[in-house]
């Protein structure tokens, strides 16, 4: 029983090592601590929601999907004007794109950075402010705990060793690949959040981790920006204005620029 587990782990480790090597070869992983610029060739901007999937709705009828697209188009323009790399949008009009396809776009284009843009929605009308998310490690912790638990539980182990459960193995591998980027993602989140706080004058809700689907599938540093609450009537009106949208784009750009250490 123990041997099989080790076998399985070894297999996992080998595959994970392959993934990690691939990640290391990727141009993103230039170490900033060593003073190098982080050179990337392609970044992906993901306007949250779209099409039938409206995202959160405001009291005055504004939809999250429209605001995220407007901000994303503005961000794309600023980045292209000021930085020497390609910017790809996961959608550039009001269409449905599954989350799976959004991460596939990033991975197929070998994106070095991924920024998902959202406007927040809460049940509480008073909820307000901006926050930046990166992937929660809970899933990984859970897997670790599960493996520890399995050492003392042979019947579940049997089912885990079922050849049809290779999905689990893939999940562990994805977690490991994601883990490699967590530090960079958290740094990017921190810098973007500082700029949002400085430029928008919205309540600083800080950087947070959450198990967001869009962040789990992307194989590069990735953040999800929640700029203000569309469910808060005062913030909804701000979000609907082109001025405020431009400020959000500018704030994200400044955070990104600091992260990439390109002079502003």
């Amino acid at each position, binding site marked *: 029983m123990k041997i099989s587990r080790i076998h399985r782990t070894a297999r996992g480790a080998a595959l994970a090592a392959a993934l990690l090597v691939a990640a290391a070869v990727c141009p993103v992983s230039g170490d900033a601590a060593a003073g190098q610029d982080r050179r990337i060739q392609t970044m992906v901007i993901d306007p*949250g*929601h779209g099409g039938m*999937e*409206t*995202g*959160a*709705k405001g009291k005055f009828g504004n939809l*999250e999907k429209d605001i995220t697209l407007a901000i994303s188009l503005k961000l794309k323009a600023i980045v292209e004007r000021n930085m020497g790399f390609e910017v790809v949008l996961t959608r550039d009009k009001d269409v449905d794109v*599954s*989350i*799976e396809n959004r991460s596939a776009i990033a991975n197929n284009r070998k994106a070095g950075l991924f920024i998902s843009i*959202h*406007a*927040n*929605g*809460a*049940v*509480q*009308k*008073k*909820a307000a402010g901006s926050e930046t*998310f990166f992937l929660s490690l*809970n*899933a990984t*912790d*859970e897997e670790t705990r599960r493996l520890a638990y399995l050492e003392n539980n042979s019947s*579940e182990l049997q089912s885990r060793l079922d050849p049809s459960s290779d999905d689990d193995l893939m*999940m562990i591998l994805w977690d490991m690949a994601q883990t490699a980027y967590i530090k960079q993602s958290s740094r990017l989140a921190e810098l973007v959040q500082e700029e949002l706080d400085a430029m928008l004058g919205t309540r600083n809700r800080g950087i947070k981790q*959450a*198990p*967001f*689907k*869009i962040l*789990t599938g992307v194989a590069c540093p990735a953040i*999800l920006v*929640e700029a203000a*609450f*569309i*469910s808060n009537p005062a913030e909804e009106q701000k979000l609907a204005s082109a001025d405020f949208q431009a400020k959000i784009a500018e704030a994200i750009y400044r955070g990104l620029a600091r992260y990439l250490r390109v002079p502003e």
Partner: protein
Amino acid sequence: MTEKKQGGVSRQALILGGLAVVLLVLVILFFTGGIGEKVKRFVDAAVPKASDAAGGQAAAKTVTLFFLSDDDDFLHKETREIAAGPTDAEEAERALVELIKGSEKGFVSPLPPQTKVRQVFIGKDGLATVDFSRDITEKISYGSSSELAAVYAVVDTLAFNFKPVKKVVLLVEGAEKETLGGHVDLSRPFLPDYSLVAR
């Protein structure tokens, strides 16, 4: 032919023996596990039940539900009485129905009131699977905050009240769904997260 039959007989004996062992284990579990649970439930129910001494009524169980408050971003605890037993899964289903029904103290449920709990299943590995009607995704437009609140109100309510529940999976109309509203990944089981709960 005879040999085959003999093989069959001995296999049958083996299976019967195996079944007997399984049965014995189940019987032991039933008595040892069952008594512990009954005692706990009885204690739980005894305190708030004292006032409403309607004779001969079925036992009640007090559960803690997790609601939102209009004044902050946290989940808030509220206790509620539900009918007890016979299984954890049935109690869990009743607790979720109360969560959807909403607060009696001015808090707000993060779930749409039209949502129906189709089924709750609690596996012996500690994984609770909850199947909701499609109303949970269709009757509300989630933002990240409201979606996280909806997921964790369910997960925390189950894990907090039912000891066997260690993690929770959410289904919609019997099927796996990517997310409830475009944010939180439903493909993996959730552990409870009490950091979202007000102290």
